[in-house]
């Protein structure tokens, strides 16, 4: 479904991606793990068109979208839920979700308001509240819900667990597994490797702009190197 071929990105001076290749098949949840600064967000932003690659290709369902503008990328059904819960703070929860529909560009919605409220009931309770006044967990739910309103065929999630309490993380990830059950294809970026490897089918390990390991998530969980470096057990 998504195929990335030797993608290279450098910002002035820094080489963030040094030839990354990666595949996501329809219906899969693929995790991308790696330390802070590895280039995970850069990869998602390049797919989404916020960052222009220096070389390499991004192909989504046989269409090259390399270097396309962000709004053009959303037309294909690739929706990114960015790192750091970027809600529209001075708009209500409902308005945030409505803005998400812009990404449809006339495509049929795959999730309506009701579906989002079923996955995240708290959003329905808070629908008239300003997004900026929500708790961190609620904001994370809102940005995921906003992405769903855009009719994703592939959802890119950037560190959904960042800065959240364990109880809230569990809620967010149970919602993600529900979405996965329903057949949504997800590319999940996480620093929390344990979470990511539990929630995904396959995974890639990114270090300093390069994929250093990949495989079935269950296997990577058992991998001694991965365990030592990312799972916090020796």
């Amino acid at each position: 479904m998504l195929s990335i071929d030797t993608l290279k990105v450098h910002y002035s001076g820094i080489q963030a991606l040094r030839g990354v290749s990666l595949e996501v098949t329809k219906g899969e949840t693929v995790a991308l793990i790696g330390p802070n600064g590895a280039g995970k967000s850069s990869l998602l932003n390049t797919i989404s068109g916020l960052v222009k690659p220096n070389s390499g290709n991004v192909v989504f369902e046989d269409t090259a979208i390399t270097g396309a503008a962000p709004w053009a990328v959303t037309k294909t059904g690739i929706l990114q839920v960015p790192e750091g819960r970027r809600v529209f703070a001075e708009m209500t929860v409902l308005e945030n979700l409505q803005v998400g529909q812009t990404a449809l560009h006339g495509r049929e919605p795959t999730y309506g308001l009701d579906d989002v409220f079923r996955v995240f009931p708290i959003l329905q309770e808070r629908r008239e509240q300003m997004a900026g006044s929500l708790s961190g967990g609620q904001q994370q739910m809102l940005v995921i819900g906003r992405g769903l309103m855009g009719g994703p065929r592939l959802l890119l999630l950037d560190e959904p667990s960042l800065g959240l309490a364990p109880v809230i993380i569990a809620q967010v990830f149970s919602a993600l597994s529900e979405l996965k059950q329903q057949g949504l294809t997800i590319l999940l970026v996480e620093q929390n490797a344990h979470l990511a490897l539990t929630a995904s089918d396959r995974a890639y390990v990114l270090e300093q702009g390069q994929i250093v390991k990949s495989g079935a998530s269950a296997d990577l969980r058992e991998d001694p190197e991965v365990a030592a470096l990312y799972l916090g057990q020796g």
Partner: protein
Amino acid sequence: MLAQQLVNGIVVSGVYALFALGFTLVFGIQRILNLAHGAIFMTGAMVAYYVVKAGGALWLGFIMAIIASGLLSVFVEIVCFRRLRKTGDEEFGGIISSIGAGLVIMTIAQRVSDTLILRFPFETFPVVIFKFWGLRVSMLQLFMAGAALVLVFILGYYIYRTSFGRRVRAVTDNEHAAMLMGINPNLIYSQTYFLAGALAGAAGVLVGLAFNSINFIMGEPYLMFGFVIIILGGLGSIPGALLASLVFGMGQTLTIAYLPSGLTDTVIFAALFLILLFRPHGLMGKEEAGNIRGRR
């Protein structure tokens, strides 16, 4: 008499609001001060004048002025700011390039008008005075207040109640997230600048009618007032600009009416200074609005 001055003050405030709303809208969305806004206001007045002079009806002149000023404003954004935004230097670079655009527009207007003060033909706007409760209110004043009210209402409806307005607010709030939701910010900018310019142009026509005097530098005092108003209201805040227009317009009218003429500006600016001392981010401003780079 106080009631009369209050009526006059409301009319003046309405014009300021039309001017300042666009100014603050643009600042809110791009963190840019468009210093050509005064020249765009003047263009509105000139266009209306030339339409009327060519035999067109005033309402036609009014509509043409709104459209022309809106388009001019869009053009200024594309020429002055769009390229600068790519370099990230728009904050100060934009000030300079928009001063330049303002000068170019004013110079063209000076040429076209031959540096003359232009006046609408007699009775372009019917001179009718209503007298009630001891007040004297001209039909023109009623029209000015009414037009300001209607336009402000339309703007508010557009921004707060339509899907277009939601997109404008989304880009204002977080441009990256808005792009990820499929919004093309360039389209939003053009539409916002059009609205801003159209409102300024409408204000220009109203001022041109009120004083029956139009010239190529008429926008500059309004640029200064507008600047004061959006700072007083809180940079980027629409309700703030409305409130500040009222405070400033009323304050100006009342001080002119009741204080010796030399004192007017002193009193107004001293009051502003006091307000900003207690509310450094303006009446309704967010803390971050003062920190121009804060949101990037």
